[in-house]
Every structure is written in C-alpha cells, then in structure tokens.
C-alpha cells in the first residue's frame, strides 16, 4: 500500500479511537452488521451503492455520527474519500464528503465535495414486513473543473443526484445466516461520480441508473457483491462498476471493508481494476 494510504489509515484509526472514547454512551440500537457501512459518496450504504438504511446506529430517540475514510487504487487512478455523516432519530441523514482523485498520467488531482441528505420514508431493514425505503440526494461541487471542461462536460461546477433505495435483511434465511440486499434507482448526470463534470456531448439529460448490493452476514463478517450502472455522457465508454467485498465488524462501532473493484474504462483508460479499503465508525 502506498505510504499516503497507510498514513491516512493510521490517522483515521487514532481519530476513531478518540471518537469511541468520547461517544461511549452514544447510540447502539441495532443488530450487529445490519446498519451497513458508508459508501464512496458519504451516504450510509455498501461500498459503491447508497442504501435505504441511514449511516448510524440510532433508534427513533437517538442521534448518531459516522466518520469514514476510504481509499481506492486501480491501474491509472486512485481516490481518497473521507467524510462524516450524522443520522437523526433513524429518520434523517446528513453527510459531507471530500473526494481527492489522482490522475497518474497527468500528475494532477481532481477534487469534489459532496453534500448528502437522505430521508427514511418507510420501514425498518430488519423488523418491517416490507423493505425499508428511503429517498436521498447528493449535491456535488467540483472544485477542479478544468479536465471536465476539456472532456466536454456540459456542467463543470456542480450537479445533483437523486435516488430511491429499498433494503431488507432476511434473518437466518441462508442456512441460518442473515441475507441482506439493497436496490437503488438513481437519477444522475454525473460523469465518473462527478469528478469529470456533469452531462456531455453524448447525453445531457438525467439518466436512471440501477444499483444493487447483495450480501451474507456471518457473525462478525459480511461478504457480497455490488453493481452500479453509470451513464456515458462524455462518449468515453464510461462503464458500469462492480465489486466483491468483505467487511469485518469487531463490534458495533467499527467496520473494516476490503473490496476488489472492476471499474472498466475510465476517461479512455481501459480495464481499470484494483482494491478498495474502508474504515468506518458508528457512534
């Protein structure tokens, strides 16, 4: 692992330990592994996909905070993503997230900030008969518009994604192990998460994209697969994304996730694949 990545991991671990100490009496309302992780754009979810669950452990009388840091490395690019979300009374989630995207070939870094809001509309992922349903939005502010502009993106400053998600845990369904799934429908104009702007010559309208996660929860470990459809607005053959992941929850407050990613073609560089590592806290 590159030195910068391990540095971030160490810093974030220290950060989490301090956090754990100060929030020792925070929310801890949910069954282990059923409230998910924080996905790459700062919302409660899997690795790539936002879920219908909120990021925290809060019940309807509690507030909870979830910091996270993730690192993605593929052949020609790497991405640091870090942020924090607050989830309020198991009803509303507010998140803020920074992306730092390294383009090795150009020795340049692209940055964007993502502000997210998610509202739980119905149900509980474990307890309700039907899946938990939430709606959300992600407002993305691109701080480095030059490359998006050069590639022909229509908007280079900001864009907003809207999504609706449904998620369910089936207790003991797989030979006694818990099965969890989430599906998300997202309206988006974002090129490569928004790092390459929004809209383009190929398409400048909102497109509906399908995203899904399916996983099995063992006691302290969960594993599964994810799929995320993406638009191809710039005409650069932007590909859908997939990953296989394994998460480890030593307790309710910390999660560690490793994934293998297949990201396909990114900005003209074909067959980008690599790893994803993420540390998250829930307090």
């Amino acid at each position: 692992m590159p030195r910068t990545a391990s540095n971030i991991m160490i810093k974030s671990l220290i950060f989490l330990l301090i956090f754990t100490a100060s929030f020792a009496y925070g929310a801890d309302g949910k069954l282990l592994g059923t409230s998910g992780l924080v996905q790459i754009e700062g919302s409660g979810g899997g690795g790539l996909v936002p879920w219908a669950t909120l990021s925290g452990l809060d019940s309807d009388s509690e507030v909870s905070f979830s910091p996270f840091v993730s690192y993605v490395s593929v052949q020609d690019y790497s991405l640091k993503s870090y942020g924090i979300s607050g989830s309020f009374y198991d009803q509303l989630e507010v998140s803020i997230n920074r992306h730092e995207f390294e383009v090795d070939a150009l020795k340049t870094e692209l940055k964007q900030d993502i502000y997210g809001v998610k509202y739980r509309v119905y149900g509980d992922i474990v307890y309700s008969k039907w899946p938990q349903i939430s709606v959300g939005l992600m407002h993305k502010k691109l701080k480095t518009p030059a490359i998006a502009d050069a590639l022909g993106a229509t908007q280079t400053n900001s864009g907003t994604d809207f999504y609706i998600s449904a998620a369910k845990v089936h207790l003991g369904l797989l030979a006694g192990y818990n099965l969890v799934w989430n599906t998300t429908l997202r309206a988006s104009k974002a090129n490569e998460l928004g790092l390459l702007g929004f809209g383009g010559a190929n398409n400048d309208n909102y497109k509906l994209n399908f995203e899904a996660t399916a996983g099995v929860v063992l006691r302290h470990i969960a594993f599964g697969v994810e799929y995320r459809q993406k638009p191809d607005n710039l005409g650069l053959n932007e590909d859908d994304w997939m990953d296989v992941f394994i998460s480890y929850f030593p307790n309710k407050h910390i999660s560690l996730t490793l994934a293998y990613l297949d990201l396909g073609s990114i900005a003209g560089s074909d067959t980008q694949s690599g790893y994803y590592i993420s540390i998250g806290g829930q307090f």
Partner: protein
Amino acid sequence: MNLRLLSIAFVVLVIISLSGCKLTQHEQSLFEEMGGHSTITKLTENFVDEISRNQEIFKYFARSDVVRFKQKFSEHICMLSGGPCKYTGDNMVDVHTGMNINEHDFNLGVELLINAMNRSDIPHTTQNKILATLVPHRQDIIYLE
C-alpha cells in the same frame, strides 16, 4: 479475475443454500435444532438473569410475577419454534399495553435475549432463526400506551 462470473457464482450459491435450507426445515423443527425443552429452560433462566441485571429493562418487570413470566416465556418460545407446546399466556398486545416501550428499549431487550442465547450455547445460525420467528411481534410490543 472475472467479476461477472464471480457474481453469478455468488447468486447461484445463494439459491443453492436457500433450497438446502428449505430441505432441512422439513427434516427438523427449530425446536429440535435448538435442543428442545432443556435449552429453552436454560435460555429462559439466562434471559431473566440478563433482565434482572439491567436497570433500563428491569423497570418494566418490577411488578411482574417471575415464576409466571418464566413459564409463559418458555411456552411461547417452544410454540414459535414449532415445539409441542401451546402458549397459554395473554396476547403480546395485552402484555405490553401501558409499558410504552420505545425503540431503544426494545432493541436493548433484543440484545439481552441475544446475550441469553449466547450463554445458553445456542449456535449463531439457530439464534438468527429464533429471532426471525420473533420479528413479526415487534409491532405488538412497542409504543403501546
């Protein structure tokens, strides 16, 4: 590594385990899988012990008849797990009306039950199946004034 192939393999694995799970359910009830009456007795004792040690939950039981609770709780678990028992207690709504149990306390109660199942040496996979039989009753337990 071909992720598409891996994903398909994962889905196939899920389907196979699902059908395998259905088969075993016919052969053995959850009651037998957890170890029958003796395990339910242990579980009940441990659950009552967990409750008595937790101030937040114990307040709901302060005026309860412990002997009666143990008997009805055992019957209920036995019946829900497909064992040879009939639950003779009051329905869940009547039992919990007036307690006004909120989500936090409900979740805490579930946690105490999981502790009790651990202490009763019930395997994790069996615990999940037991919880699955209890999940539909949450609406008959919380927020009843």
